[in-house]
């Protein structure tokens, strides 16, 4: 898992093909936000957007394209990837923030993925648009240390408040520290 080359090989790149025409919503996002790349991943519509416009894209999808629910916000750490799918037009960074949107009127899903560099792990929050993103964004902050700009209450949610580190980062090893509980006497 310590292979440092994040570039995917040619076979993997073939599995992802541009479907800017197949999904009109994805095509509209690509048209409205230059720099976005629409792909199809295993039959699902995915748009790689610039992290600066994540909130605007989400707002556009909510207001203009009737995406009614934000089903999931999560993050991925690609630091230890052996092989990574290469997508033309997308500069891969260490972290990815993934926003899953669901449109009930269209009965369709779309996934927005933005690349987040290691030295500035910040993305705009979608909680002002979808209040339901509150907990998952706090979880992503807790687990990956990614800051969501504009989140009303960005605090740790699963780990204790005074926890050091972000557990789901690949460089946060398992069993890093012995298990202690608050108020425990120091180990002898």
């Amino acid at each position, binding site marked *: 898992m310590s292979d440092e080359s994040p570039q995917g090989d040619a076979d993997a790149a073939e599995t992802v093909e541009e479907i800017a025409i197949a999904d009109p919503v994805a095509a509209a996002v690509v048209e409205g936000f230059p720099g976005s790349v629409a792909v199809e*991943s295993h039959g699902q519509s995915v748009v790689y957007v610039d992290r600066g416009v994540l909130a605007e894209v989400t707002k556009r999808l909510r207001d203009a394209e009737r995406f009614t629910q934000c089903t999931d916000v*999560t993050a991925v750490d690609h630091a230890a990837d052996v092989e990574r799918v290469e997508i033309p037009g997308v500069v891969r960074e260490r972290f990815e923030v993934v926003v899953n949107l669901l449109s*009930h009127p269209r009965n369709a899903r779309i996934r927005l993925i933005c690349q987040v560099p290691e030295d500035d792990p910040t993305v705009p929050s979608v909680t002002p648009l979808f209040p*339901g993103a509150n907990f998952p964004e706090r979880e992503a902050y807790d687990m990956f240390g990614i800051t969501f700009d504009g989140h009303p209450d960005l605090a740790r949610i699963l780990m204790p408040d005074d926890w050091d580190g972000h557990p789901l980062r690949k460089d946060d090893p398992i069993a890093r520290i012995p298990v202690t509980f608050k108020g425990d006497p120091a180990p002898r």
Partner: protein
Amino acid sequence: MSDVINEPTAEEARLGRQTDEGAQELRPRQHEVVMTGGVWPDDDETMIINMGPQHPSTHGVLRIMMELDGETVLQAKPVIGYLHTGMEKTGEQLTYVQGATNVTRMDYLNCLGNELVYALAVENLLDTEVPERAVWMRMMLVELQRMASHLLFQATNGMDIGALSMMIYGWREREQVLRLLEMITGLRMNHNFIRVGGLAADLPDGWQQATLDVCDNVEAGVAEYETLLCENPIWQERTQGVGVITTEQALALGATGPILRSTGFPWDLRKAQPYLAYDDVDFEVIYTGNGDVYDRFLIRLFEILESVKIVRQCVARMPGGDYRVQDRKITPPPRGRIDESMEALIHHFKLFTEGFKVPAGETYVAIESPRGEVGCYLVSDGTGKPVRLHVRGPSFYNLQSVEAMVPGSMVADAVAIISSVDPVMGEVDR
């Protein structure tokens, strides 16, 4: 005294941060103990109390910080993380073969559903189709699991609201479903039975009659609950108009499942985005329009009957054939082949030591669990272990709707509301 309360400034400081220390600070410390007479606190005095994490009505280790004005709850804030065991991190250390044992422990009332969503996600990345019999077996097992989960809800919901006999009735029927699941999978819970590429084993002898018996008994039980509760004026007083949530609120807060359906929004992934063979069986999406505790109880009650309907169709129409794909890279060879074939032995050994490799890619698969949309976001880098295994637990999202439902209700109603969300803390904290 009031200046002590107002000391941490504005609105957000009133409920404070989630440490115990914070909660203590918010409580008036320099309180004059007034036994008789003396100054009574101001009328605008509010009190902040913790419900949980060790409280019998919080279904595990949920903690709710509530700001009270007398008996009325002004606001409530769920505080979670007490059951966090890093299951998503564990998932990154396990091979795809071992992964099912991990996800099945997340929502421990919907074990088979979690296994299913994980298996579907891995199969999606592998581009594998499972045989028809596996599809129908999976559907039957997941519906049995839904029955068990909703029966447990009936038991605990009744207990929380005060219909204590419901607890015994609900468990009585659930026990039968669990016995049937034990007969089929070998375990009552955490089955690890739905695996990538199919199932762990075929159905045992006599499963048809056993399943139909359970269906009859559950149906009779549901009829009893209906008589006991639906028209019961005490039950109605206690639940109707309590914890009301609108469709707009539910959608905005990411609530799915019975909470969303109780607001008059008939959204069920089994109908809307059919997976397995749900487009091939006959069942109804139960929904109501009031969005209160009573409606959520009613939806779960009648969903049991819909699940019974699906299970009966599965028994009647169970196709023959294989219960897993015969791909030696994904599923183990039959036991008999291991003795006579070197390749079978090697495949068996490789599968259970290092697992199989999954092509690089990412996918999000969602199914309808008893609590709503359970999704699995899976990222692979072409090796034998996932880069990221994220499970979208419906309880995690549904719990946010407590903040919208509780304000304005009584403390005792807050217990009913939390119960009606049906949170499973194993899935909330993962």
